[in-house]
């Protein structure tokens, strides 16, 4: 089908068109032009891909002024379609009253959908730009608070992105 929407049958083509030469030349011209444009291929792992702020890498907990923002409301855990998140709340003398004494994300279950980030009323769990996840056992794949906490400095780009797209 041509761009005009008119159906062209083989019997309608001229000899010149039937030889395919003009189409081959068109294709080669495209290929050669691309060869001189800048390359997008990254030589991983020597070179690392730096994702945009919109990228959904592994979910992390935001740490602000030495404490997590999380109040252990459990909404991320409830909304998680893969049941990857387990939260256990406890009491803290801080103004927020409540904090997660345990916060675990099972990275084998996580599907990087970002619902946890979307539902969070405290902007305490966000998708980071980390995409390299390696573990050698099921147990290792369960990330606790030690692996999840990231400071606001480290997450600056993502938090800014979320603010702009609220």
């Amino acid at each position, binding site marked *: 089908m041509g761009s005009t929407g008119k159906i062209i049958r083989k019997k309608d083509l001229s000899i010149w068109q039937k030889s395919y030469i003009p189409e081959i030349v068109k294709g080669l011209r495209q290929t050669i032009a691309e060869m001189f444009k800048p390359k997008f291929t990254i030589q991983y792992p020597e070179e690392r891909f730096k994702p945009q702020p919109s990228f959904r890498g592994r979910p992390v907990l935001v740490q602000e002024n030495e404490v997590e923002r999380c*109040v*252990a*409301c*459990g*909404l991320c*855990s*409830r909304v998680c379609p893969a*049941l990857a998140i*387990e939260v256990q*709340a*406890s*009491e803290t003398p801080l103004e*927020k*009253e*409540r904090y997660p004494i345990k916060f*675990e994300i*099972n990275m*084998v*279950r996580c599907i990087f959908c970002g619902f946890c980030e979307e539902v969070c*009323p*405290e902007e305490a769990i966000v998708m980071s730009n980390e995409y390299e996840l390696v573990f050698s056992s*099921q147990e290792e794949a*369960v990330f606790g608070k030690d692996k999840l906490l990231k400071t606001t400095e480290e997450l600056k780009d993502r938090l800014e992105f979320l603010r702009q797209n609220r």
Partner: protein
Amino acid sequence: MAKITINGKIFDVDPELTVIQAAAQNGIEIPHFCWHPKLTVSGNCRMCLVEIEKMPKLAIACSTRVADGMIVKTESDRVIKARQAVMEFLLINHPLDCPICDEAGECKLQDYSYKYSVGYSRFDENKVHKPKRVRLGPNVMLDVERCIMCSRCIRFSDEIAKQPVLTFTQRGTHVVLTTFPDTQLDNKYSMNVIELCPVGALTSTDFRFASRVWEMSSTDSICVGCSRGCNTHVWVRKNEILRLTPRFNEAVNSYWMCDSGRLNTFRTVNSQERLHSPMIRKDGVLVDVGWDEAIARAVSDLKSFKKSEIAGIASAFATNEDNYVFQKVMKEVIGTKNVDYVQHVEDDAGDELLIRADKTPNSLGTRQVGVRPAEGGLDITGILKGIEEGSIRALYVLEDDIAEDPRFAAALPNLQLLIVHASVNSKTARFADIVLSCSTFAEKNGTMTNFAGRVQRLRPAVATLEQDRAKDGFAMSRWDKFASQNDRWGRSVKKDARPTWRVLTAIANALGAKLKCTTAEEVFKEIAEKLPPFKGMNYINLGSQGANANAAESVSKQKVTA
């Protein structure tokens, strides 16, 4: 009778009723915060405003009497607009801390915000700040900011608990709920204000931040703290009981429950002292063994005594099914006449509202199923004397810690054989030669009869090794449904415990009897066929509300909105 019209439908109602009661009786819900069926009317939340023809203004349904010919509209435009206004005013100073609040998920203000509110706030100014984390008493926490001044807790303390210590101070938006100077909310029923509170202002100190309500499963059961047998919900997460809350039953406990029953009865289920498996005494020490070994040992040991040397002590802590099978096995299979049980009555421990002096949940049922000495047999004092004198040499004890009584504690070492069904490492279990780990009230099916003769169901809420949540029809939370072996949250601890009647059946059959019951329901069917007080009853018609002995009229269809 008065004829009234609500939303175009005509109803014949008692003229003594208020509009909200008449509507509730006929299945029409009028939203309300401050009104409660068991408390006096205060009419201060204004949520139940309805339109009544020929009245110039909207009227509150909770304090307006019905009258013949009255025409009520609960869903007209005026009513909806007024409700939205009430919600808007209530939410002006209500903090947006649902993520922190324990009430979230069972909060009336939350539910009504979805149903009756406009969904946004026009209020841009600062909210009024008030004291948070105030301890009203040993079991109740107060967050004044969340309070919507419905005064339910004040009326409950004044009218039901008879401890008038709560009051409002200040005026307008600055109203603060507080206790009078030098008093605290520490009556035996103080925790009922937690369920009464329509918001999260009053919360439990025990359950504080323990779990979100939607993460738990809820099972209908009864409290085993005394012979009242209050109806309860058992809330379980990760196979562990986190809280008990009262369940409405007009014939037993209304909407209430005592603090002791709520806080203490489930501790044994979660206890660190729980037995891991059956145990037998080898070379003077109790060691864990499998069920087959423990039962085989019990059978061979029991055979080596004369019938008159054996005695059985049943338990008013056990279910009707357990006690029935016990007395049957003792009298018909083992052949002893010495069967009785120990009463646990604490004089002066009872009160007028709920708490009974009899601290066992099933003493009437124990007698009804036939736990009494057979003709010429020994009763409990006779058994004790027999042990002391040496004429009783073997004793079989059901789920009762008889060694709490110093006379029994002194006499028990005289025995040659002591078989005990126990759930925790009790004093009696430490004397025993064979300990059979038994399921607690939260782990088995069964019935108990309260002091007034009401037969009520127990349902399993906590899984043991021999039960499976899904296969055995437990209430399940979302977590229970989807847990796999690889999930840390799915790995709950399960105890190797069995219902007493089942173990007794196994022992009896090994002794040559032919007992056929394989479920508690079948045992109860046999009880209902043989014993007049249980005539006509079965697990289905007992339902969630139970039935009175002798008159098996099920009242499970009762429904009243709180």
